[in-house]
């Protein structure tokens, strides 16, 4: 059970059961769909940007506990972050769930995201954790494109 406990940590189960920011933002600056055709996980992420800063982030959709908790935790962390900070966290999260961050202190330093460290022991589930982050990255970049064409 120990690896399972490491995967299904309290933080993850809690965010799965009571996802934060689980709503649509009607006047969002952009919304992007993320879909995993293999397993059917499907989320839409909504962003409101105040210049370079993510002023509001929310999501709707359905999927497994890992993907839903990942979207929920991500939404709590990214509010108030700049676009660049969000992209840096995206990279860090990738390294974490792929098991590329070995040092416990480095993992602990990631706060709530550290709860996803156990995912690396379950290669089939890495893409579940990453899906919301990819969707967010697309949303942020879409905004960037919109901005650059203005």
């Amino acid at each position, binding site marked *: *059970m120990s*690896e*399972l*406990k490491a*995967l*299904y940590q*309290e933080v993850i*189960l*809690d965010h799965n*059961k009571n996802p934060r920011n689980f709503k649509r933002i009607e006047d969002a600056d952009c919304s992007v769909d993320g879909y995993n055709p*293999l*397993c*059917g*996980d*499907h989320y839409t992420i909504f962003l409101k940007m105040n210049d370079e800063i993510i002023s509001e982030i929310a999501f709707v959709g*359905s*999927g*497994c*506990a*890992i993907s*839903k908790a990942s979207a929920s935790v991500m939404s709590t962390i990214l509010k108030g972050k700049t676009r660049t900070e969000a992209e840096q966290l995206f990279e860090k999260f990738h390294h974490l769930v792929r098991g590329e961050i070995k040092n416990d202190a480095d993992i602990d330093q990631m706060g709530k995201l550290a709860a996803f460290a156990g995912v690396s022991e*379950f290669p*089939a*589930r890495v893409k*579940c954790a990453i899906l919301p982050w990819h969707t967010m990255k697309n949303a942020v970049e879409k905004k960037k494109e919109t901005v650059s064409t203005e």
Partner: protein
Amino acid sequence: MNITMSKTGSILDTFPVEKIRRDFPILGSRVHGKPLVYLDNAASSQKPAFVIDAVQYYYTAQHSNVHRGVHYLSELATKKYEEARVKVGEFINAGSEREIIFVRGATEAINLVAATYGRMELNPGDEVLITGLEHHSNIVPWQMICEAKSAVLRVAPINDNGEIVQDEFNRLLTGKTKIAAIGHVSNALGTVNPVKQMIAAAHMKNIPVLVDGAQAVPHFRVDVRDLDADFYVFSSHKVFGPTGIGILYGKSRLLESMPPYQGGGDMIKSVTFEKTIFNDIPYKCEAGTPHIEGAVGLGAAIEYLNSLDWHNIQEYEQALLEFAEKEISAIDGLKIIGNAKEKAGVISFVMDGIHPHDIGTILDREGIAIRTGHHCAQPVMERFGIPATARASFAFYNTPGEVMALVRGIKKVKEVFEYV
């Protein structure tokens, strides 16, 4: 093991399952430190040593290319390959081995019929009829040919139990319908369709029928002539044979009328730059060097299946399925999807507040292999308003003890999720 059977002398007690299990080497393995409980047979079944040995022996002592050389090994390989064709023909009671085409699997068989028969017969406005229970492999090839030919794909709906609405199916068989393609057993729900009756209804209107038997052949004996199927397809790897080979059965008159699927060696009688004369069936439909060891392995699988008592197997599998449905449906917060009167080999279920992927991961750590997801049948999932299910699928080598391991595993899933 604390299994109490309702009545003594039940087939669940008397069926020689332990003896059969010894024929399948992989069933003795351990996964994550636990004995393997393999309940993903609808995805692919395991192989008896008889099949594994036949493939190994083929490469050790019998291999060369087929239908080519005059030398000993080429003749031997050809003999083994053609013997396999005869075994398949007898296995499904085809009228002749000429009606047995080796393909890569059920998927390729359907693509072959869509791309040849479909290409030949469909005109703008014509219709192809399928059902709401189909696997993607019996949807997409028809969609593709319908699009190419400006034809229309019609879908007979299913009811809340996961059964095809027969009146609707009959109503959708019209003067415009050029072919109907129906699954024999649903891979997602386990529904056994009344294909004989459906074929008869189609034939009343002179409409040929393709039956996707991928999930039927592993569970009961199929007689294509009794069904009067025009085309019948299945995959070797689901009937305890190798992957990468499958069967298209077609009535010879239809196969002869169809254009070739692929061009190449073996499918020709003579080639000049001006004109090619195609070979006779079945070779016309088998371009290139075939999957010889696959055919040999499938032949061995059929030989193995023929050595078993199928009357007993069908009774055992039905009893095992009923036992599993009873035990699994007794779990709180669990719902079985698909409650057709006639079912074979499959229990699809969902759990309150727990996604099928999480069920699959936790069961895996208990050594239990099930499939989770949409099972390549997204329209079925949509019909029931769910994104995915967890699916336990059985073969004759599964046991009541494994059913109970699954039940304990599901309870563990609930424990993990009741943590908060």
